[in-house]
């Protein structure tokens, strides 16, 4: 006997931030609005509209898609972001990165391809074979 408004206030712009704590583990799919910080581990695909941050010590095994992505922990899977992807020095990443820009810090372990939209500096544009 569900009367009244079961679908209460549900405005995507008011999505609150989510945290997966250090002692937490998810096996399955995570998706939705807002940002997500991963200190624990996720085995499955992640898709969030806001920022996805995989902390040092956190891990994701699966494909991720986010508004922006910061990796300080471990990612095994492909990543895409409308905004920037930042791979921190503590990160261990295996997968292809597709972002508006990709930052790879010194010390990070990275195995995969980086695809980012950017303009080459003028001194390189004349070289054959460069793209």
């Amino acid at each position, binding site marked *: 006997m569900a009367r009244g408004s079961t679908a209460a206030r549900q405005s995507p712009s008011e*999505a*609150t931030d989510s945290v997966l704590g250090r*002692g*937490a*583990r998810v096996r*399955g799919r995570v998706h*939705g*609005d807002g940002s997500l910080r991963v200190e*624990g581990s996720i085995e499955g695909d992640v898709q*969030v509209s806001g920022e996805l941050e995989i902390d040092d010590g956190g891990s994701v095994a699966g494909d991720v898609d986010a508004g922006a992505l910061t990796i300080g922990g471990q990612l095994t899977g492909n990543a895409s972001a409308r905004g920037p992807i930042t791979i921190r020095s503590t990160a261990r990443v295996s997968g292809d990165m597709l972002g508006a820009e990709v930052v790879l810090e010194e010390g990070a372990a990275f195995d995969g391809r980086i695809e980012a939209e950017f303009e080459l500096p003028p001194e390189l544009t004349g070289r054959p074979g460069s793209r």
Partner: protein
Amino acid sequence: MATIIGNGLTIEGEITSDEDVEVAGTLRGKLSAEGVVTVDTGAVIEADVSASTLQVGGTVTGNVSASDRVDLLAGGRLVGDVKAARLTIADGAQFKGNVDMDV
């Protein structure tokens, strides 16, 4: 830091945690926490839940068990069996299911 599932987030699968878990979003699957599980108003859980303490202010469909207690808060809705030593059901809460207090 404890786990918080924000109101825009949906998890389909299994969550285990050795800390507290607060759910404001949607969860389908299974939730096992060694700490306190709080289901906020507006949250939807379609899963079996086990926790030390479970506070239900939102909607839970599934069997729940708590090593300490289950509190069904006003506005909360629980459809499923409860296994806990202590259970409170607030005025204004909805509940359908069996209760096992392990007596």
